[in-house]
């Protein structure tokens, strides 16, 4: 992985309250450029809230969410231009084809891409060419996810934010997806993902942050040439689960 010293994403003593509930408490972490960082946690741990705060959908009660050196709430448009977001259920427009969907979303960002560039992105995510011109209503979840990743690639954003990206995918699709993430990171892209998939996270992440009840309870890093120890992460993850 080609990590640099520049900080791409930072949570600085971040606390978020929603309806008077403390969802995230004094959370601090840093993600370097070119790094794959997985924020791991069970249901209700505060993963998605953290992600949405980085996207600018929630305002921190205290602390800062910083992306590419900008405080998110202060420079929302600039920050969002730097990021490509992949939601959990990549619900694109079912009445449009994959190509039309990609063209539509790119146009929203005022990005022009030729058909051949779109084809290359589809090839890159291994979306069968027979599906490119088909309406997405009959797509499987994996195919929808691939289309959304193609869209993220075409945006050429330096930072990718992924929300439970492998949820609902079959094992083959998960492997393909993880491989794609590694390839993406190798190009220098920063990837921040929230997930509860311990094994998938360990397979691809450079670092894992373990979130429990809104607090960061541990961080795990891969060493040179080897993945993060799955058993160690699993044990720490399971500690927080009800018996």
């Amino acid at each position, binding site marked *: 992985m080609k990590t640099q010293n520049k900080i791409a994403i930072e949570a600085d003593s971040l606390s978020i309250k929603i309806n008077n509930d403390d969802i995230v408490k004094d959370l601090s972490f840093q993600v370097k450029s070119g790094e794959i960082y997985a924020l791991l946690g069970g249901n209700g741990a505060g993963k998605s809230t953290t992600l949405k705060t980085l996207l600018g959908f929630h305002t921190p009660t205290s602390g800062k969410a910083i992306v590419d050196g900008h405080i998110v709430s202060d420079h929302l448009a600039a920050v969002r231009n730097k990021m490509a977001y992949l939601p959990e259920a990549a*619900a694109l427009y079912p009445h449009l084809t994959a190509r039309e969907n990609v063209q539509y979303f790119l146009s929203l960002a005022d990005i022009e891409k030729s058909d051949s560039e779109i084809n290359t992105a589809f090839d890159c995510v291994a979306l069968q060419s027979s599906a490119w011109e088909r309406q997405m209503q009959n797509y499987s979840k994996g195919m929808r996810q691939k289309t959304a990743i193609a869209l993220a690639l075409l945006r050429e954003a330096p930072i990718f934010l992924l929300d439970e990206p492998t949820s609902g995918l079959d094992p083959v699709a998960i492997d393909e997806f993880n491989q794609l993430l590694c390839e993406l990171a190798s190009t220098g892209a920063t990837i921040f993902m929230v997930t509860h998939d311990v094994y998938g996270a360990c397979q691809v992440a450079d670092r894992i942050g373990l979130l429990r009840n809104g607090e960061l309870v541990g961080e795990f890093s891969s060493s040179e040439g080897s993945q993060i120890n799955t058993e160690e992460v699993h044990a720490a993850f399971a500690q927080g689960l009800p018996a």
Partner: protein
Amino acid sequence: MKYFLNQISREWKFLLAQKYIVVLLLCTLLTSGFAVFSGLQEVKQQNTTIERLIEADRLDREQAQTKHANVGSLAYYSFHLTYEPPSDLAFAALGERDIYPWKHRIKMLALEGQIYESDAQNAELAKSGKIDFVFVVSALSPLLIILLFHDLFAHERSNGRFDLLVTAARSTFSLWGIRSLVRFLSVLLCLMIPFWIGAWYSGVGVGISLVVTLLCVVYLAFWMALSLWLGNKGSNAPSIASRLIGFWVVVAFIIPILGDLAIKHQVESPKGGDIVLTLREAVNDAWDIPKRVTMRAFVATHPQWKEHVAVERMFEWKWYYAFQQVGDQKAGRLSRAYQDAAQTKYDYAGYVSWLSPPLLLQRKLTRLANTDAIAAFNYEKGIRQFHSELRAFYYPWLFTSEKFTKEALVDLPVFQPVSQRALKKSSQLIENKVTK
């Protein structure tokens, strides 16, 4: 500019790809087209009726003038057509023309009965009923706007696309702004294209067409803003839709109906039938009371004829027309009360309309089209004025011994519709200014 056009083109293609919206817009276009077409047909029918009546009226009067040499008989048997033709814009706002009469054939007899004979009801508040352009815009288009805009955000939220869209868009305007604009313009065009065609066909001036368009834009923008505001606050599309539809029902129907009831309750008005009855009683009684009583009452309002009111025979036309005049005088108080009440109801309805945007739009457009109650009141004033002119023409022949000749008929007043009189007046003013 290129960026803006690209954004518009993107959302336009996106809109066309959504079949239900296309169907909805087509329905709007058809409904508006139907409303304009039926309005044009109605106006054409009214104009044809007027043309036919003018010709029949001319023939009928010519016949009476040939047949009757005596001035009293001639006045008695001569009908005079009064009418108010629909304005060029009437096709879009038929207004009160199906409630208030716009044509009468009147005689030299007592007038009040002739005016109120056809009075069936006196609704001052416009309610839904006619499918004219104003009805489509004021009552139906809010529903369409609600359908298109209530779930602009909620639909994307419920389908899990909202966050992706928001993060993908360059700015809020490039997404929601352009999407709203395209939808708004589509609705506006579907509603207005038939109107513009109808306006061109009817010869409505560009200025008036622009005013109508502006009023419709403001009105539709109000509903769009309301739908977007509520839509942005909630996440449940059915709940947003039901709140908006509830509001629409209240302002489009409940407020006008309750307002109408309250005004009727508040403003007392004699019925047209009461006026007719009072007049008939006065006229019938006149046959039984001494003639000098009638003539005294007549002279009280027409002192210029006091030297000529002696009635020596059993029947004299001057006595006959004098008791018609006195009948009008007796029914006058009720008639004025009726007119005042109608005007007050109209004014009160104006206050109510500030609580009901659909009613307000209807009032503005029917005023522009000259098809509202004010137009009807002006027409009635026109009839009264014409009837006074008729009396002023006939009375010298009836009350003096001067011999009536048919040559005098060149001065017989001819009814001129109020709108044409106004036109004549303004062209005279222009002419005077030019001459000066």
